[in-house]
């Protein structure tokens, strides 16, 4: 049996998954995670640099043994072409959030200041609210949200992680 000691502690692992852009492929992946009882923290998907190939970034809570199974099970899917664990690689990791925050009177200036500190942007202005776009690591976005919360967050949406290994290395190609 694969014991805890042999397979390490649970932590957040980031996988980049390349797959053929075919109908149903996303449901194959999400169904796999549900069925095998893997714990996804975030999942984003979109086009890659190659036409017909989608790129997914998955953050999964796993230990070494679970992660090995996740990767193997992903490879079992017919349309998945490449799975890379970039947890231990030097990688650029970003998330994006849109935050609609209550803003009247003096609050507006204060929010503007916070936005500048976080190198975020105000992308929509209304009489009683501002919409802020912030990009960065999860921590940065968490702190931005915490800073804005006292003003009253009316609406919030954030993407999951997207990630790319630093330097010239590519995450594509055949397995």
């Amino acid at each position, binding site marked *: *049996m*694969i*014991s805890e000691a*042999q397979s390490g502690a649970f932590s957040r692992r980031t996988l980049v998954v390349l*797959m*053929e852009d075919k*109908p*149903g492929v996303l*449901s*194959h992946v999400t*169904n796999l995670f549900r*069925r095998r009882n893997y714990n996804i923290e975030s999942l984003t998907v979109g086009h890659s640099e190659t036409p017909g190939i989608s790129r997914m970034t998955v953050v999964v809570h796993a230990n070494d*043994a679970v992660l*090995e*199974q996740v990767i*193997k*099970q992903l*490879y*079992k*899917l*017919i*349309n*998945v*072409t490449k799975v890379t664990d970039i947890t231990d690689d030097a990688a650029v990791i970003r998330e994006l959030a849109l935050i609609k925050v209550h803003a009247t009177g003096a609050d507006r200036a204060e929010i503007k200041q916070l936005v500048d500190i976080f190198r975020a942007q105000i992308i929509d202005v209304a009489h009683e609210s501002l919409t802020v776009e912030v990009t960065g690591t999860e921590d940065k976005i968490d702190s931005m949200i915490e800073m804005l919360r006292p003003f009253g967050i009316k609406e919030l949406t954030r993407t999951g992680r997207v990630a790319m290994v630093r330097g010239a290395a590519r995450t594509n190609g*055949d*397995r």
Partner: protein
Amino acid sequence: MKLNGAQILWECLVREGVEVVFGITGGAVLPIYDEMPKYPIHHVTMRHEQAAAHAADGYARATGKVGVCLATSGPGATNLVTGIATAQMDSSPIVAITGQVATSALGTDGFQEVDTTGITLPITKHNYLITNVRDLARSVREAFYIARTGKPGAVLIDIVKDAQQAECEFEYPEQVYLPGYRPHVRGNQRQIKQAAEMINAAQRPVIIAGRGVLIAHAEEELRTLAEKAHIPVVTTLLGKSALPETHPLCLGMGGMHGEAYANLAMQEADLIFGIGTRFDDRLTSTASTFAPKAKVIHADIEPAEISKRIRVDVPIVGDARNVLQALLPLVHEAEHTEWLECIAKWREDTLAHDILWQETDELVPQYVIRTIWEATCGEALMVTDVGQNQMWEAQYYLHNRPRGLISSGGLGTMGFALPAAIGVAMGRPDCRVWVVAGDGGFQMTLQELATVVQEKLPLKIAILNNGFLGMVRQWQELFYNKNYSGSPLLGPDFVKLAEAYSIPGLRVTKKEEVVEAVQRAEAMEGPVLIDFQIEQEHNVYPIVPVGQPIHQMIRRPIRARAQSAACERQGGEA
């Protein structure tokens, strides 16, 4: 050449070498059925779609070719589900084709509409929803390729009705392009070398052979390796017959109902070489207690099976035949005399325990199976259902013919035997086919007796009739205080039932009638059903209670039930 979708489907099936399709027609497959008579493919009209999938599965297991089943949308498709899951769990290559409502009705909860690809997604190796006739030929080609290669499995193609009717230029794709699907068939040479070194160094090695050996047709290689290096072979249920079961090195099935000597061999081994097996829980029981003294080599064609349940020292991803061929020259001739003598002692002890069924005057199932075994010289294709009947067959029918046992191992689908046997008999008309089922499982799919008659299939059907869902009753007896909740089962008069289908029926109620009935059945040309009214509360032993290590089994009682209030619990130093 411009063809409609239905014609393209049949053209593709013909090119894939399909000779028989098991199905039931319906509204959403009418265009497909309309074209069918023009093509040289035999259609077997089944009585239930579940049975169509089991028949395709049985056909695939018996022939090694891809089995095909066909059903309409909605309930036709949902009825296939059990059969598809059964095939997928046991790596049986089938292609299931379903009709779907027209594109205009898709997603509107139309009449007989169901999300077939959504429902079957987790129980197929891959599936397709065809909404454009242009995608059809390529998808059918891919479906067959995916079903039969790598770790074989079930693939479903759902075709909307208008795509069956729409026309397009037909071109059969000669090549399959699947960049994300490249099965590894050759094992890594470095790992094979490492495995050979471990085999050569082992003092108490055991091979565990699974169905992968039979799928890869590696039984000759397995035998050569076992004989050359003098290694005893335990099989899984579905690995039975990978080595002839009368071979001195064959220890038969291991696991929950495995013989003590097979289980003890695994527990005492210093090396386990698992090949074509997924080390499932019925074999290993709790994984942490399995083969505690052994290093493990695991060869399987599916990387995801390796290190899934059991820690592995040397993983080899490859086809059983290639791996064994590569391994053979590297493995030294050896004699493990001491080890085999030790196992022989355990075997003697087991045989000394296994006497009750021979001494009793009651009609007991072990005697029925042994009689069939003797009458068929271990050469019949045995199609078994699930439960006690399956385990008695596994324990008392020693298969000499590779792929001689066809049974639902992984999913454990009751009702499998009769419809699967229809596929088996269609695929192997040269073989004697016996069905072994309990009265419970048989009643789940007995409507297929009509198909047996329709296709004139000479099935020999043995019902081990104990008036219970027997395995459940056994667990209730052993682990639930004899609280027989939900397990007693009323059945029909099976002889009259058979006769209603114009199948000769025999009833056997006494031990002394067994031999004659089996011989009569063997002598008959057509199908026959025998209702063996066996002792009602007879148990399968040995049994490893769930959660126990596989050497801690409840062994066979050596005295009649009335005298032995409690079964002997014995393990470890058997």
